C-alpha cells in the first residue's frame, strides 16, 4: 500500500508543476482525495476515516501524534510541524498516512472501488498493474 501511496505522490509531483517538492506533492494528493471522499461520505464520514488512518500511522511515525484532524477533515498543526521536522520524515509521514487511508478504503469497499475513486481523481494515471489486495495496509517500507 505504501508503494502505491508513493506512486501517487510521484505522479502528482510530475503532473503538478506548482509542487516544488515531493512533500508538497504528498500534501496535494491528500487534498485532492479529500473532496472526492467527502462527497461520498460527507465531511463527518471523511473525518472519521482520516482520524483512524492517523491513529494507525501514529505507531509508525511518532511526530504525527501532534497532528489533529479538523472538522472538515483537514489537518491541524501539520504546517507548524513541517518547520520543525526533517522534510524526509515529513514526506515519510505523509506516505504512511496516505497508505493507511487507502488501506482503510480497500478494507471497507474493496480494491476495485478504491482504485475507481483514485482513477476519478487522477484519470490519466495508469493503474492496470496495481494490486492492492495482496499487501498489508500496515506494511512498512522496505
Amino acid at each position, binding site marked *: 500500500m505504501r508503494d502505491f501511496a508513493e506512486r501517487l505522490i510521484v505522479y502528482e509531483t510530475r503532473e503538478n508543476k506548482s509542487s516544488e517538492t515531493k512533500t508538497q506533492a504528498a500534501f496535494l494528493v491528500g487534498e485532492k482525495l479529500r473532496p472526492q471522499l*467527502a*462527497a*461520498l*461520505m*460527507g*465531511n*463527518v*464520514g471523511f473525518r472519521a*476515516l482520516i482520524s483512524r488512518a492517523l491513529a494507525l500511522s501514529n505507531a509508525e511515525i511518532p511526530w504525527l501524534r501532534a497532528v489533529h484532524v479538523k472538522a472538515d477533515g483537514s489537518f491541524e498543526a501539520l504546517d507548524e510541524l513541517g518547520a520543525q521536522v526533517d522534510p524526509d520524515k515529513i514526506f515519510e509521514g505523509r506516505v504512511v498516512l496516505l497508505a493507511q487511508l487507502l488501506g482503510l478504503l480497500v478494507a*471497507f*469497499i*474493496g480494491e*476495485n*472501488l478504491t482504485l*475507481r*475513486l483514485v*482513477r*476519478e481523481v487522477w484519470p490519466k494515471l495508469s493503474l492496470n498493474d496495481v494490486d492492492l489486495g495482496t499487501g498489508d495496509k500496515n506494511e512498512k517500507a522496505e
Partner: protein
Amino acid sequence: MKKPNNAAKHKLPKKVVSQPAKVTIRKLPTGVRGLDDIMGGGIPEFSFNIIAGSPGCGKTTLSHQIVFANATVKKPALYFTVLGEPAMKMLRYQQQFSFFDESKLGKAIRFINLSDVAMQQDLNAVIDEIIKQVMTISPGIVVVDSFRTVVRTKIGGASELEMQSFIQRLAQFLTSWEATTFLVGEYVQEEIRDNPLFTIADGLIWLSQLAERNSVVRKLQIMKQRGQNSVPGLHTIRISDGGLQAFSRTLGLVGKKMKPARNRRLSIGISELDKMMGGGIFEGDSLLVAGPSGTGKSALATQFIAEGLRHGEPGVMAIFEERQKGYTSRADSFGLNLKTPQKKGKLEILYLRPLDLSVDETMQELLDAVERIGAKRLVIDSLVGFEMALAPGFRTDFRESLYRMIGGLTGAGVTVLSTVEVEDTFTALPFSQYTISFLTDDIIRMRYVEIDGQLRKVMVVIKMRGGNHSKDIREYVITDKGVVVIHPRSTDYNGLTTGIPTRTGPRQAQEEERAPEPKAKK
C-alpha cells in the same frame, strides 16, 4: 351505360376529427425480477416515488437495483445519502449483490453525501444542494436515501406548510428536470394519511417484513401508482445474492396464451386407466390423484410423465416428499428411464423442500422450469408435501395460490397431475383434506379395500370435467411395470368404497400363499 364518375371513384375520406395524441409514458425497468409485472410494466418515467418500509425490508437494495438497471453515462443516476446508512457501508454491502456493476460507479452512478448540509443547515440548503447537483449532472434517476432523515432532522424547525412546500418544490424541480425520483424512508403505515409526502408522490412502494412463528417473510405492495395499473395486494419478495426478487400474486400468468381446444386426449401411461377415463386425460386438464400412503400415486405420476416423454412431451416433476434418486430408481424398476430425458433437458425433477418458502416463489420455480424446457406435463407430488415446505404464514394462502398457478398452467396448455395423500377412513371416500377438488378437472381416487383376507387396492375415476368416464371400481396392482389395472369391475361385492365391502356373489377359489403382486425392484 353510365360512365363511372372519377370523383366518385376517388371518394374523399370522411373528415376525421383529430384527437390530440395521448402522452406515452415510458416505463423504466426496475431491475428486479417480477417487479415490472407487478408495476404494470415498470416505473413510469419522470415519476416521483417513495420507497417506504421498516428497517431491513430491502429499501436500499431495491433502490440500488433500480439505479443499476437504468443509469448510463449519458443519463446518470444521482444517489444522495443523508444520515442513513453511511455511503461506505452501503458500497461495502451492496457490492456483494450480483447486480452491482462497479464499472457504473463514478460516471453513470454518483453518490453524494448530504449529511453535512442536512445537519448544519435548513431545508432550503438541502434542496439547493440537490438542485445544484441535478443541474450540473442532469440525471435520469435521483435517489434520496434516507429522505426520512432529512425531514426528521428539520421538522422541528419547519412548519407543516414549509415541509409541504419543500416537498412540492423538490418534486416539481426533479420532474421538470426529467428525473425519475425515489425518496427512500422508514415510514409506518399510520403516517400515510397525514404526511403530505404521500399526497404529492406519484408512486408508493411499500416494503414490509412479517414474522410468523419462526419464519420471516418480506412483502411488497404498490400502494399508489399514478398513470398505470399495478397488480394489487401484497407480493412476496426475497433477497438473495442477486438482490431482490418479487413474486407477483398473479405469478406473471396474466396475458399468457389461452388454453388450446380440449380435443386431444393424452395417455396417462396405463392403458386400462386411459379407457376408464374415456380415452385418456384431456390436454390442459388438471388431474388430482388422491389416495392413502402406498397406493401408488407417485408410481402413477411417474408413468404419466414417462408416457409424455415417450411422445416427445417434456415434463416437470415437483417432488416434496421423496428425493430425486428415489424417484429415478423407482422409475428404473418399472423399466422407465428418467435419467436420459433429464440429461437431454426434456425432464426436470425439482426437489423442493427448503424452509420458509413462500407459495408464490415455489410456484415461480415450477413455472420457470416449465418455461425452461417447454413442459407439456407437470407433476406435483404431493400437495401435502408442498404445503409443508411453505412458511407457516403462507399455508393459509395455499389453496388460493394453487388455484392461480394451476389455472395459469392449464390455461397455457400444460397438463397437470397432482397427488394428494388422504387417510382411508373405512366409512367414507374423501378426495382430499383440502377443498381443492374445485381446482381440478379430473379426480382419480385410489384406496385400500379388505377382500378375502387381503388388503387390496382399487381405483375409480370420480370426475372427468367435460367428458364421460367409466364408473367402474377397478382393482389394480403395482408390478415391475408400475401401476397395472387388473380385473374388470367386481360385481360380487357391495360397499367397496367404504373399504370393507360385503360379499354378494359366490366365493372364488383362492390361490394359496402366492404374492398377488410382485414388489417393484429396489
